[in-house]
């Protein structure tokens, strides 16, 4: 269970850890923790396939959850190793007609990428073969079907005078196309036998019927019935297979583009690094760099791993990671992040985090996980797709039988049957959501907005209220001590020494400001004894035999400290936006200290942009109402929740939710974590603590509050895109099936040719993916 603990560096003073411990305890009670595994699934072509894999794995005993993403071809499963072995899960997937390979670590992810690239290349080759052979089949067929085109063909292949040669040539040319598309038959028929037919089944039955009919027609011609030369259907089989394969190929290429954000991130990693060993420079592979190694980075080179500079100064371009365009100045003691670029000077740094522990690796993992997670909106498409193929098979069979009973000949009936099967392939439906989520989250990553999955993306677009934490979110979070008002016998230096000593162990921003001020004045601090943090109030410690209480008014009141003498000062200071800290020594008020935090330069603009999006903005803070109101006014926020204890932030968010609002909480501190979890969407400022980042649904890497509006705008654009995709995929199928079934023909309209059905089917998938790719051009409207 230790592994499950969050990597934190918080103090007991400011964190309510109950919610974390509760989760950990619950898991411990359930004897065995489910193991999570990510599998690369081969052989999936449509949403019916992903639904089939999901169904197959969910049925297995010991598998507690399974989510299959068609776009990434990945399945994420949770299972109990004591109940079922991974090999059994893989075997079940194999049995269902697909292949499964475990993805472990970055090396395997690279191999998986290579495998996919190889798959795309193979697809390209097969499409080329199919196109080369099906083109003449189509040409020959068209010369017969539309003689007005006057397409010249050799005399000995004329459909009238040499019908058998005409048929045989098409038959021979169609065979390589069928071989190139043999996958449709092996997978399609296998899944049909297993009772979970998919898109391949539709293509296999449709084109297989057409091809078998062509052979039958050829035999009939050989036996003297030349009328069969009029509709051989070889061209339908060949062209439909080619178009579907072309569609699948274009889809695969486009799917590759949807994960370009990941590739861009992966490409940030250099292959090698230079380390200093015994005074000698050694170029080693990236995975050979160990924690503690001294790494040398020359100007213009990429920083290979995370670390702390020990020698040299430079400015570092971190834009690839944070989206921040300005280089950041670095000096000894500064942290550097792998993937950023050393712009100017030569630096040496000590490696602190390597391999999968680096920030870049974590970001890549986060984005990959996010892209693999389904949005709730995808479930509708999944449910429909699961039933779609069997229903289509039924519709095709019923329509064909109905037309046959009505007296139509075999050509007509076959046209109906094949057209329905071909036009109804649900690939567009299956691609509608995951492609848009991939592009949307990828685009977010490029902009420095890490959205943790489809669910977060979908929830973000519904946000109507944003609660902004004040310190560190609206403000810089680095207050400076501005005023010290004394009320006792101690002088300013003595008071400051005692208070700063007591606060030296605290992480609170005002406490840090006091300690820094004391150090700047050259005061010698003393280690406190019996340090006790009182959450939401302050600290209680012994320094030089004196009991020091430092904190807010509640701390004073709870300890019956008389603060009447400070009331006027407190009012004046808080009205000017200062954060107050009362200091009591041995039960008597000694001083009132005030700190001021500066508002981030982009906060006002960010609030304005949120309002433009129709979002209600609320500021939440532990400060008193007067102090909070000053900051709120400065940034243009009308509603303020002041005097809120850290543990109450979550309940304040809950109150807003109970009033029917979809709430996003934006924060940076450990104390914001419960509220981030409570909110419909938690957004963490990426420059904040690990706990906040872990607890949030959206991480704003740049630390710019403007990204809140950008994240909401991006999610709205993505969900709009998904809805467009779903609309067109549904409409396409809803309209296409009746047309293919001959509804228009009943009213004197045309009959749908299977070739046109195949083309339309391929185009529907390509158009859905292309529409999703439009999101790559998403731009934030600046005020």
């Amino acid at each position, binding site marked *: 269970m230790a592994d499950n603990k969050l990597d934190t560096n918080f103090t007991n003073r400011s964190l309510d850890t109950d919610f974390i411990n509760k989760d950990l305890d619950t898991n411990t009670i359930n004897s065995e923790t489910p193991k999570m595994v990510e599998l690369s699934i081969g052989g999936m072509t449509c949403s019916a396939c992903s639904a089939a894999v999901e169904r197959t794995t969910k049925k297995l005993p010991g598998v507690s959850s399974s989510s299959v993403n068609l776009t990434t071809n990945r399945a994420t499963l949770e299972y109990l190793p004591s109940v079922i072995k991974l090999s059994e899960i893989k075997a079940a997937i194999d049995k269902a007609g697909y292949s499964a390979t475990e993805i472990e670590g970055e090396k395997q992810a690279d191999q998986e990428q290579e495998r996919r690239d190889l798959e795309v290349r193979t697809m390209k080759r097969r499409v080329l073969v199919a196109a080369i052979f099906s083109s003449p089949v189509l040409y020959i067929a068209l010369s017969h079907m539309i003689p007005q085109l*006057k397409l010249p063909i050799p005399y000995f292949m004329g459909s*009238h*005078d040499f019908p*058998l*040669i005409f048929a*045989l040539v098409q038959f021979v040319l169609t065979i390589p196309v069928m071989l190139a598309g043999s996958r449709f038959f092996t997978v399609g028929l296998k899944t049909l036998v297993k009772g979970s037919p998919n898109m391949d089944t539709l293509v296999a039955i449709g084109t297989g019927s057409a091809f078998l009919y062509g052979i039958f027609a050829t035999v009939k011609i050989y036996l003297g019935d*030349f009328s069969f*030369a009029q509709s051989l259907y070889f061209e339908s089989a060949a062209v439909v297979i080619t178009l579907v394969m072309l569609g699948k190929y274009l889809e695969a290429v486009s799917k590759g583009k949807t994960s370009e954000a990941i590739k861009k991130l992966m490409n940030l990693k250099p292959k090698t690094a230079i380390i200093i060993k015994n005074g000698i420079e050694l170029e080693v592979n990236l995975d050979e760099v160990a924690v503690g190694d001294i790494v040398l980075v020359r100007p213009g080179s990429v920083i290979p791993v995370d670390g702390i500079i020990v020698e040299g100064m430079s400015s570092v371009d971190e834009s690839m990671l944070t989206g921040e365009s300005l280089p950041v100045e670095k000096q000894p003691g500064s942290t550097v992040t792998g993937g950023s670029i050393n712009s100017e000077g030569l630096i040496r740094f000590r490696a602190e985090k390597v391999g999968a522990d680096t920030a870049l690796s974590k970001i890549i993992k986060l984005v990959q996980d996010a892209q693999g997670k389904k949005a709730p909106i995808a479930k509708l498409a999944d449910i429909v797709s699961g039933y779609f193929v069997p229903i289509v098979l039924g519709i095709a069979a019923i329509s064909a039988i109905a037309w046959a009973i009505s007296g139509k000949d075999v050509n007509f009936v076959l046209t109906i049957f094949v057209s329905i099967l071909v036009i109804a392939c649900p690939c567009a439906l299956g691609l509608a959501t995951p492609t848009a989520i991939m592009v949307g989250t990828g685009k977010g990553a490029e902009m420095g907005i890490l959205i943790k999955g489809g669910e977060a993306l979908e929830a973000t677009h519904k946000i109507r209220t944003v609660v902004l934490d004040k310190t560190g979110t609206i403000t810089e979070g680095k207050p400076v001590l501005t005023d010290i008002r004394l009320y006792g016998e101690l002088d300013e230096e003595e008071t400051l020494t005692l208070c700063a000593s007591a606060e030296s162990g605290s992480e609170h921003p005002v406490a840090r400001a006091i300690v820094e001020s004391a150090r700047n004045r050259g005061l010698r601090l003393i280690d406190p004894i019996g340090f006790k943090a009182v959450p939401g109030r302050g600290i209680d410690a012994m320094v030089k035999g004196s009991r020091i209480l430092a904190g807010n008014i509640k701390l004073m009141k709870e300890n019956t400290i008389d603060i009447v003498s400070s009331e006027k000062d407190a009012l004046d200071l808080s009205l000017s936006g200062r954060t107050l800290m009362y200091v009591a020594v041995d039960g008597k008020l000694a001083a009132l200290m005030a700190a001021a935090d500066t508002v981030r330069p982009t906060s006002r603009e960010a609030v304005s942009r949120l309002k433009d999006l129709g979002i209600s903005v609320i500021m939440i803070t532990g400060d008193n109402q007067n102090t909070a109101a000053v900051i709120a006014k400065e940034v243009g926020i009308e509603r303020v929740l002041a005097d809120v204890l850290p543990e109450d932030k979550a309940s304040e968010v809950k109150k807003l939710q109970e009033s029917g609002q979809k709430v996003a909480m934006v924060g940076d501190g450990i104390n914001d974590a419960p509220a981030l979890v409570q909110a419909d969407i938690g957004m963490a400022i990426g420059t904040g603590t690990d706990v906040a980042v872990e607890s949030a649904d959206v991480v704003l890497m740049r630390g710019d509050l403007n990204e809140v509006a950008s994240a909401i705008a991006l999610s709205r654009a993505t969900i709009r895109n998904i809805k467009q995709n779903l609309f067109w995929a549904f409409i396409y199928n809803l309209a296409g099936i009746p047309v293919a079934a001959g509804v228009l023909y009943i009213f004197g309209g045309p009959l749908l040719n299977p070739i046109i059905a195949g083309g339309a089917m391929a185009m529907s998938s390509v158009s859905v993916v292309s529409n999703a790719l439009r999101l790559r051009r998403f731009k934030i409207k600046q005020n």
Partner: protein
Amino acid sequence: MKKMRKLSLVFIITLMTAVILTACAGTDVVLKYSPGSFDTIVKTFPELVTDNTLKDHYYYLSVDGETTLKISHDYDLTGGDDLVIQTPIAPFISAGLDVTKLGEGYKADGTTLYLTADYGKGTGMKNTATDSLFESVKADRSSLTYHQLLDHYGIKLLKGKFEFAKDYTTNDKDLVFVIAAKPLAELGVDVQNIDGWLFKTMKDTDGSDIDVLLKPYDLK
């Protein structure tokens, strides 16, 4: 696994080649089946054919006794007139035909218009009308046609065609004499008004429109 795949591929290619080679022998199904269709008609309706070979080397095939297909039983003996469609000329003259302007492929005398065709010297004397007719195809395969829409075979002459049903039992036009209308129209003949002949614009196998004069017969 790879070996299996290769083997399968070789097997399929071999099978395909075998199929094609086997099929090659009988790929010209129109040539294969058309003599049978013609033979069936002349045997079912023997009165259609008159053997005049002893007199002028021709079999005469006619339904109405007027428009006739003359089939040479020995192409070597009939010079340039191996197949001849002969029909009364009066309706054509009435429609404006000037016989002096007739070119290659036509002949005329006072009463009859002849459409002729030369297929070379042939392969010797034939004993049946069917064998004699298909001597033309042996000389030139392109003279034999099949028209899918009408389900007709045809033997081309220079300016006309003789067509017969592939299956007379299901066809309502068992025999058809065809004269190309365009050359006559160019000679000033009012091709749409020739008594006894039906003017029609047909679709040729290449999709183009072709004007023809038809005289069809249903033998049943």
